[in-house]
């Protein structure tokens, strides 16, 4: 009797709560959802780890933060010059340039180019855009140092307070994306560029783009592009497996093998990039002031094994700063190679021997113990840290790894001996950016306080040199000197992968990581 009544009451309560759940679901339905594409429309859905607030690119206004990367990557805007596969600038919205003097560049603007709102992208519009850029964008202002921007006919003339040797390369930086500044740049959906796509809606996690019917460069093959920010590697993998996206960027190495094994459904396109996994020696650390110790550390690393075993061949062993596809990179410089025997001999020569038999070398009763600082947001860096721990242990050096996303704090406080990071070494196709920022006594990112007057002098010569061939030779000489000093250790360069369904065409990775969505992107229509 009582049991039955009780069951009824519980049943009643359950019904009430289920009704609540259903109401909740109905309310949630009103939260919206993905817009449905028309039948036959070509919609490309792209999952990427490279878009979002944390990347400072969650927007389309190239004159703000790193939003230019999104404008260029997703086909909304274009720059005056772009990089070819060898990272050399070639005309895009411009047709060419000349230098009347060391501080001036005259750029010829292409005829017939229009913004997506139909307004002509002429010299006046380009000049207005560049003037606005250097007025509001601190990084562009500091890099370009423009003192005047004028337009006459189809020529834009740029005057800079510094020699313009790398100005054309710097204009390929996504902040150089040309937009119509007569429009409201505050609203990201109203940023008007010259690219094959127009922004329909934009949030910090998703962008909806529609094709620009008046694109100056020809027919755009895909009707819609949806860019989804996905910050979790497993999620990225499952979304592609489940068919919710057509292509992904940033796939974890551990997942790539899944798609390599399913060649009938997926394809993987990869390209070597100039992103390097490097380690800077801290010259304030007494032990590291001895060149033999630094050399021993460099020789202890088996770069080929690191790339093969830990990066699953998704990178390639680095010799110096720049990758092999650049005229001043790859085997143009040389390092000491992997030589653990010589590493141990160098430590012995420096007075470090394992006197207590604990497996680590010591001097004056103290083990040789170093602190390796890195961060975890790039999956390769903790792998490099643990690999180094093993390699250095073999050489007799105890390495304490500090892999933290708060690495900036430790770096600033000087609580480190070797600092490892991943960095794009030639984002503008020119070596000046990296060299100037890392190798001289005044360099902003010379974290280890490396000093070599010869390098400083070479960098000074390099900055004033215009001839590309001589610039390349100087870059090689500078990097070689840094390698000879063992001030930096270069472990490997990243190979960037794009994994996509077999039906996707015209979506190819580029060494500079700027160009992804183009007019040539093509996918089967909806309802396929």
């Amino acid at each position: 009797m009582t049991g039955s009544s009780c069951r009824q009451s519980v049943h009643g309560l359950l019904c009430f709560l289920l009704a609540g759940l259903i109401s909740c679901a109905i309310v949630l339905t009103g939260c919206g959802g993905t817009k449905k594409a028309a039948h036959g429309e070509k919609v490309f859905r792209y999952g990427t780890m490279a878009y979002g607030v944390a990347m400072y690119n969650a927007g389309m206004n190239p004159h703000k933060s790193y939003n230019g990367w999104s404008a260029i990557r997703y086909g909304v805007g274009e720059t005056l010059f772009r990089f070819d596969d060898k990272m050399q600038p070639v005309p895009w919205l411009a047709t060419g340039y000349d230098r009347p003097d060391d501080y001036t560049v005259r750029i010829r603007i292409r005829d017939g180019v229009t913004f997506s709102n139909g307004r002509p992208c002429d010299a006046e519009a380009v000049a207005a855009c560049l003037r606005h850029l250097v007025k509001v964008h601190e990084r562009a202002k500091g890099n370009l140092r423009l003192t005047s921007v004028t337009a006459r006919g189809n020529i834009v003339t740029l005057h800079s307070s510094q020699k313009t040797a790398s100005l054309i390369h710097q204009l390929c930086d996504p902040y150089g994306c040309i937009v119509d500044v007569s429009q409201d740049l505050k609203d990201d959906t109203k940023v008007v560029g010259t690219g094959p796509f127009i922004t329909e809606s934009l949030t910090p996690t998703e962008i909806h783009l529609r094709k620009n019917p008046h694109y100056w460069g020809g027919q755009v093959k895909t009707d819609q592009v949806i860019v989804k920010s996905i910050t979790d590697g497993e999620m990225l993998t499952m979304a592609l497996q489940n068919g919710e996206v057509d292509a992904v960027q940033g796939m974890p190495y551990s997942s790539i093998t899944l798609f390599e094994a399913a060649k009938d459904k997926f394809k993987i396109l990869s390209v070597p990039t100039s992103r390097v996994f490097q380690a800077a020696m801290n010259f304030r650390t007494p032990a590291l002031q001895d060149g033999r110790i630094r050399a021993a550390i460099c020789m202890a690393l088996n770069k080929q094994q690191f790339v093969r075993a830990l990066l699953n061949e998704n990178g390639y062993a680095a010799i110096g700063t720049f990758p092999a596809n650049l005229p001043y990179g790859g085997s143009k410089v040389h390092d000491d190679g992997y030589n653990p025997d010589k590493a141990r001999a160098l430590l012995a020569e420096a007075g470090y021997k394992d006197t207590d038999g604990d497996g680590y070398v010591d001097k004056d009763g103290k083990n040789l113990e170093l602190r390796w600082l890195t961060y975890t947001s790039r999956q390769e860096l903790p792998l490099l840290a643990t690999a180094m721990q093993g390699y250095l242990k073999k050489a007799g050096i105890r390495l304490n790894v500090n892999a933290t996303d708060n690495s900036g704090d430790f770096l600033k406080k000087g609580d480190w001996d070797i600092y490892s990071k991943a960095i794009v070494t030639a984002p503008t196709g020119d070596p000046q950016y990296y060299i100037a920022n890392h190798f001289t006594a005044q360099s902003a990112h010379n974290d280890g306080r490396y000093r070599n007057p010869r390098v400083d002098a070479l960098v000074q010569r390099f900055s004033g040199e215009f001839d590309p061939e001589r610039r390349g030779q100087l870059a090689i000489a500078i990097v070689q000197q840094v390698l000879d000093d063992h001030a930096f250790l270069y472990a490997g360069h990243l190979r960037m992968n794009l994994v996509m369904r077999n039906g996707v065409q015209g979506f190819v990775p580029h060494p500079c990581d700027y160009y992804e969505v183009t007019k040539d992107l093509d996918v089967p229509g909806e309802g396929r």
Partner: protein
Amino acid sequence: MSKPVVQRLLLLIPVLFGISLVTFLLMHVSAEDAVDVMYRQSGAVSESVKAATRTRLGLDRPLLVQYALWLRALFLGTSLSIGTGLPVSGMILAKLPATLALTFSSLALTVAVSLPLGIYCALHKDKVPDYIIRIGSFAGNALPGFFVSFLLLYYVAVRLHWLPVMGDGSWRSFILPACSLALPMTAKYTRYIRGGFLRELGKPYVSASLLRGIPYSIILRRFVLKSASLTLITVLALSVGSLLGGTAIIESIFRIDGIGNMAVRAILMKDYPVIQAYVLWTAVIYTFVNLAADLLYHHFDPRIVATDTSEGGGIHD
């Protein structure tokens, strides 16, 4: 509004002031600031560019001046995010619907499952189903949320194709994240409800009511369930507070653009105005939810009365 409630709300002012000041000072203990983080990835800027950015953002001014300016911006509603440049209030409001949807759907699911299970276990104490449910609740408690998420995603979305992997804002995309949050909460709640029910069933008023001939179902529904609800309200209040504060891991896995994701991003980017706003939001939420819980205690059990806080506490038995 009763005096204790007004007092509780007034107490919120110094609490918020203290919390915001302490958070502000703690954030600036770090050697790295928002501008360092902003340019860290590119490494392409000189110190002069960083200095110009700091000047534009007011980060080069003395700490207390920065705090005063932030306080002023807060009152005027003009506080801007360093990362996005957008008004912070607008950012929080934009993230709120997703967090609210996730909070209430996971809570509804939790209560809908754990309440009957807990009651069933209590009524069938030490029987086989009780043991099975208790073992299940142990397991549910032990499984971390992200692990449950990936299991559900793999089996329900990838293998069976019943639901989407990624959140697209539709109600279907909230099912898996709600389940991922609800599973460990259900395990915990079932045990609490079972315990609360058993405690009440052992009290003399239940035997006395039965002796007076009151049907068992009425005793359960009108008295036991009502009294045992106090346990449920306590845990619910804690859960609502923490869920409204954001569930960063689940939000990140399921691509839900909620408060938790926003807070983690802000911390990583050292976006001070957003972190400050988030801390205030969490403090306000906890205060209001606890206040609501206290009022509900009184509603369910009038013996628990609200008293003047100056007389040694807020609302007590």
